């Protein structure tokens, strides 16, 4: 097979470009300001013990825990858009050093932080723990610098996973549209915000999109079922919510078999192959992890007792939260795009969806309708789950939960428009949104000052604060002293 020289440099360029983009977003936000980053860090620090003990909750060695976790003002920033990172606070963060005494002492698990993240599988946390320890052993890093090194490691892994996705995209019939599809996915500000922080989503989102592509390839050729199973195992060993992918992967070829009378035989083959792939993935992940571990679902909001009609009405009321949450709800769901930008994105999405359905929905149309079905199935599953757990967990759906199915929306927005001009306009809008939200992040955390944002970079010099300031009890939470927490 002859491949142009451009083909060989394309993947390295995609990798470098993605890594640079993620690094930019990794540096712009202060420590622990991405969703659940505190919890994921503690889980990473405790993983060395947890992996060998088959327990959900294990103690953390104080020496493994970054002391930034204990700083009270960092806990006051999430959910409070009015609280930015002040210059003195930055100096305090940069002045902190690793604990020298009691380094071998262990801390009981912080029960108030027990979220579903504690029940996620180990591979992501073990990898990060290992690479982070290597980086700390190789160079002298302050806790502040070590936190950003952790974020860079995650960004690197995420960039690798996205490059794999791009390579897969190149091997399908979608190759002609690969760049616009990729741009639509990767320039999503929420995706960039989350993927450049300590969070398994950084790997899970690209892998889930790879699974979608592999499912599409399995529909065309059932021999890809083995690769589909591998992709599913990888996803299931990153996050337990990956189980939602199984019914999606099975239902798409099934629905296609029902609506496509012409190639029903092939559809049935691919349906059987998908079922086998899912079974293989489920059994493998069960034997490797889930047999000995508990799956927990977080309860971010109080439970609600609502009948179906009230619940459906609440979905309608929350429509814009989902919509802006998918594109631009940054921080700990505390900062999002303005309404005029929400309107623009909504108009583009509606127009492209109508155009997409007009082109691809009829019987002789293309197989790409399967991506629309997959997204529809994902939304239905999330709604069903939320309603099922409503009394215990309350409203749990966030806009970013649709990111693993981002490929479907990207395809709709790229394949929908009939005119190149319209497609370019949509692409321009998503790149503009990304730049706009980057600036909004500087406003959110650094009061709009790029000079202040520059000073937060881990290698920029600073004036050290006194030990008296660092030892001020008000500066510290009771996390490391474990007041009010019972050891598990």
């Amino acid at each position, binding site marked *: 097979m002859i491949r142009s020289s451009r083909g060989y440099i394309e993947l390295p360029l995609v990798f470098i470009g993605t890594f640079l983009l993620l690094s930019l977003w990794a540096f712009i936000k202060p420590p622990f300001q991405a969703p659940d980053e505190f919890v994921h860090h503690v889980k990473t620090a405790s993983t060395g013990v947890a992996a060998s003990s088959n327990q959900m909750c294990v103690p953390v060695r104080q020496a493994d825990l970054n002391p930034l976790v204990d700083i009270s003002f960092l806990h006051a920033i999430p959910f409070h858009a009015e609280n930015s990172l*002040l210059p003195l606070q930055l100096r305090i963060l940069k002045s902190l050093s690793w604990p020298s005494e009691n380094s071998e002492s262990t801390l009981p698990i912080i029960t108030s932080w027990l979220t579903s993240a504690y029940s996620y599988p180990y591979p992501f946390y073990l990898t990060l723990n290992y690479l982070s320890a290597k980086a700390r052993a190789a160079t002298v890093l302050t806790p502040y610098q070590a936190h950003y090194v952790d974020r860079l490691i995650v960004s690197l892994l995420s960039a690798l996973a996205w490059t794999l996705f791009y390579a897969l995209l190149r091997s399908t019939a979608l190759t002609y549209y690969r760049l616009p599809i990729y741009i639509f996915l990767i320039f999503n500000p929420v995706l960039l915000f989350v993927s450049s922080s300590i969070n398994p989503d950084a790997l899970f989102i690209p892998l889930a999109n790879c699974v979608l592509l592999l499912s599409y390839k399995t529909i065309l050729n059932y021999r890809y079922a083995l690769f589909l199973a591998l992709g599913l195992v990888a996803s299931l060993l990153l996050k337990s919510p990956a189980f939602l992918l199984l019914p999606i992967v099975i239902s798409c070829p099934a629905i296609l078999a029902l609506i496509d009378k012409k190639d029903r035989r092939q559809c049935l083959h691919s349906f059987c192959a998908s079922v086998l792939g899912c079974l293989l993935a489920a059994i493998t992940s069960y034997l490797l992890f889930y047999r000995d571990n508990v799956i927990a679902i977080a309860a971010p909001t109080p439970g609600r007792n609502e009948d179906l009609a009230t619940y459906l009405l609440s979905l309608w009321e929350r429509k814009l939260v989902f919509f802006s949450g998918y594109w631009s709800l940054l921080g700990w769901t505390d900062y999002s795009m*303005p309404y005029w930008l929400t309107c623009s994105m*909504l*108009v583009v999405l509606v*127009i492209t969806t*109508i155009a997409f359905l007009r082109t691809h929905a009829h019987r002789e149309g293309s197989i790409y309708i399967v991506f629309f079905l997959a997204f529809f199935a994902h939304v239905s599953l999330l709604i069903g789950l939320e309603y099922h757990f409503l009394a215990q967990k309350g409203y749990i759906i966030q806009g970013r939960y649709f990111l693993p199915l981002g490929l479907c929306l990207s395809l709709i927005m790229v394949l929908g428009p009939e005119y190149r001009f319209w497609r370019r306009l949509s692409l321009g809008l998503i790149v503009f949104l990304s730049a*706009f939200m980057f600036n*909004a992040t500087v406003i959110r955390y650094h009061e*709009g000052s790029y000079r202040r944002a520059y000073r937060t970079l881990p290698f920029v010099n600073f004036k050290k604060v006194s030990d008296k300031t660092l030892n001020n009890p008000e500066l510290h939470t009771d996390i490391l002293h474990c007041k009010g927490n019972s050891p598990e």
Partner: protein
Amino acid sequence: MLLLRLIFACLLLPLIAAAETRTVQQTNRHQLEIAVELKAQIKTLIKEGDKVRIVTNGKYGLSTRSNPPWRTDFSLPLGGMFEKKPEAQKWQTFRIKGISEQSISLEYEYGFNHRSADNDLLVIDKGQLEMPLSN
């Protein structure tokens, strides 16, 4: 056809509610930051009778309707106000609350308009600080 789609899409616009302004009041949150900057920017701070004469490097000053040019050398009585040159999204105003032989006490108001937030967030921080008089 494109026009029809545009019209259909525009029908969705009324679904979007108008932005609400949310004001958050804070106390002394920016006190230290402002005190450090103000100290660095004030060249002269001396007592002249019952007034205070302030000379700044240019960032802080006074501009009144009757005397519009930005003044960086001015005298203020008790209760007099000066400000920081307003920036795009934030402002600072100061009111002289007390004058003693050693220092003056100031009340400050710091405002920051987030604008890009979905609910047009406005943060107002009020507090007090002491500025020592020049020798």
